[in-house]
């Protein structure tokens, strides 16, 4: 009746009988999250920190074994930091900047990410997904100690659901048998094969890629590789049509072989066969342990809509991309960041229900951008026709000698946050000469403020950021409070703040959303304009 589908890296929330299971009628909760993967846990953390009671149901008792995601991008870490768990990720993670691209037995070129100074977080860290999830979980425990109303129920599998106008009813299976719960709002974070999506009979269309990839995470015993990203197209050691080598914490390296579509999975996953591929690549005499291995295939697709009345889909349940470009968990975290404050405001009665429709508008835009980018990378890495193969290799041979061809080489365009350009919550861009990167819809870039950082002072609420401009310290519009963060060029010796937020302007006023996206900006404070933009950002205009 209750079989684990995978083994656990960390057992964190063992099954415990809940009084809800003995209730005469299904107990109603404000929010239920189905799925305790990274996206479900982050959702619980976001809402719990707002004081909104949330129950997470997961069919396992902790975090699954094996590292799927390893690359976590700056924006994802900044979101985690807003929730309080970004720093342990950074401490544990591996920071890398240098990448090398090979074709056959030749190095085509190398690149340096050349990180921009003045950010708390680097462009990327490499970190095994189970650690990423555990840091989120540990922050949940911290918040629980401070009174956050978050509850996680292990071995609670959702087997059925009925959607009504104003609530959702769930059929749940546990080791003690079935019970039912009701929720005002339901978050479906149940992963790529989302049972909830199937229960609602919803579409999930897109492109299936006919290729498989063999992952081996290995711990080196004798020699070591540098902290760099190495990517081979058609490697001379013939272990795959492409191969990726990337460092993770704990002296573990990720090796990813593209092995073709028609493979015998069972055969390929035998240790001796994995070792044959690794030995060909690493050469004689290199000793290592295989920490984890698996074969994966992938799709690039999304649901037509992420919101279905009282049910929201987020993370892999809503959209799936190829792993090239590291956009899966990274974009799922942006879903959470986007929906958390909106749902909080609607539940508290501060904003109309229609605000929740903008989750669809903004995150579908994000998903489409991610699907476009990762599909392009995939087409470059695994050409689908003879002519595309010829062009791909033409790019690689030119890139060896000519700089112009290097930007065309696409071994994964690394995840950057999308800008909600032209979306309905955006207010005016009334800062003449203002930098494009901080236009309405953009996520705020970080900047140093003495020993601290700007982003740590934003977030969780609406904020008026003024730079050398006057404004009141707070204002309230229709029940929504805005507080001011007053900054000045005097606090900006590096010039990063001016560069990122003033451009050619002398002063600036930014209205910033709780998810650290810019809602509107002006060169000076105008009360009517700010109130109008605030109403718009709350879905009231």
């Amino acid at each position, binding site marked *: 009746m209750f079989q684990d589908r995978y083994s656990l890296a960390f057992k964190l929330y063992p099954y415990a009988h809940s009084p809800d299971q003995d209730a005469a009628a299904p107990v109603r909760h404000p929010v239920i999250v189905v799925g305790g993967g990274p996206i479900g846990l982050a959702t619980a953390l976001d809402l719990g920190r707002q004081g909104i009671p949330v129950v997470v149901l997961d069919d396992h008792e902790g975090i699954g074994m094996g590292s799927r995601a390893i690359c976590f991008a700056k924006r994802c870490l900044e979101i985690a930091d807003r929730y309080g768990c970004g720093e342990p990720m950074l401490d544990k993670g591996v920071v890398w900047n240098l990448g090398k691209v090979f074709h056959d037995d030749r190095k085509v070129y190398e690149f340096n990410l050349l990180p921009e100074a003045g950010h708390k977080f680097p462009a990327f860290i490499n970190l095994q997904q189970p650690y990423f999830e555990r840091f989120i979980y540990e922050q949940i425990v911290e918040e629980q100690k401070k009174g956050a109303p978050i509850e996680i129920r292990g071995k609670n599998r959702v087997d059925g659901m009925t959607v009504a106008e104003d609530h959702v009813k769930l059929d749940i299976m546990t080791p003690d048998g079935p019970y039912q719960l009701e929720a005002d709002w339901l978050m479906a974070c149940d992963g790529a094969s989302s049972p909830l999506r199937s229960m609602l009979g919803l579409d999930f269309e897109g492109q299936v890629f006919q290729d498989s990839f063999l992952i081996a995470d290995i711990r080196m015993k004798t020699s070591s590789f540098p902290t760099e990203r190495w990517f081979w197209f058609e490697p001379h050691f013939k272990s795959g049509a492409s191969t990726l080598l990337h460092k993770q914490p704990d002296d573990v390296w990720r090796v990813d072989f593209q092995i073709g579509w028609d493979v015998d999975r069972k055969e390929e996953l035998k240790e001796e066969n994995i070792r044959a591929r690794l030995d060909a690549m690493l050469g004689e005499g290199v000793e290592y342990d295989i920490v984890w291995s698996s074969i994966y295939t992938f799709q690039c697709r999304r649901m037509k809509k992420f919101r279905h009345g009282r049910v929201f889909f987020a993370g892999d349940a809503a959209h799936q991309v190829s792993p090239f470009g590291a956009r899966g968990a990274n974009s799922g975290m942006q879903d959470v960041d986007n929906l958390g404050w909106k749902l909080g405001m609607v539940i508290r009665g501060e904003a109309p229900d229609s605000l929740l429709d903008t989750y669809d508008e903004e995150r579908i835009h994000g998903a489409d951008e991610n699907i476009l980018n990762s599909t392009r990378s995939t087409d470059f890495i695994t050409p689908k026709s003879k002519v595309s193969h010829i*062009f791909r*290799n033409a790019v690689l041979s030119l890139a060896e000698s000519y700089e112009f061809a290097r930007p065309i080489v696409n071994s994964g365009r690394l995840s950057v946050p999308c800008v909600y350009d032209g979306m309905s919550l955006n207010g005016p861009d009334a800062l003449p000469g203002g930098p494009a990167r901080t236009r309405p819809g953009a996520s705020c870039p970080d900047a140093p403020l003495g020993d601290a950082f700007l982003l740590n002072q934003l977030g969780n609420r609406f904020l008026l950021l003024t730079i050398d401009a006057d404004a009141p310290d707070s204002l309230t519009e229709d029940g929504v409070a805005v507080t001011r963060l007053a900054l000045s060029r005097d606090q900006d010796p590096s010039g990063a703040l001016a560069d990122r937020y003033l451009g050619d302007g002398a002063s600036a006023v930014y209205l910033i959303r709780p998810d650290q996206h810019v809602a509107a900006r002006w060169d000076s404070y105008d009360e009517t304009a700010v109130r109008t933009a605030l109403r718009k950002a709350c879905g009231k205009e």
Partner: protein
Amino acid sequence: MAKLITTPNLAHPDDFYAKLIATHDGLTEDDSMALNARLILTLANHIGDQAVLEEALSVAKATA
């Protein structure tokens, strides 16, 4: 806005054509295809303008 030139623009068309064909001398069909691909990419970078390149792609496609 830049526009694709579709009127004669080569000073010595016979010289260019002879050079183009001679460059492929002795190559297998696959090697020729690869050379053409490198040539297209090199020229595309020189042109640089996406609108002009898209016009050129349409011209090439429409005249098949």
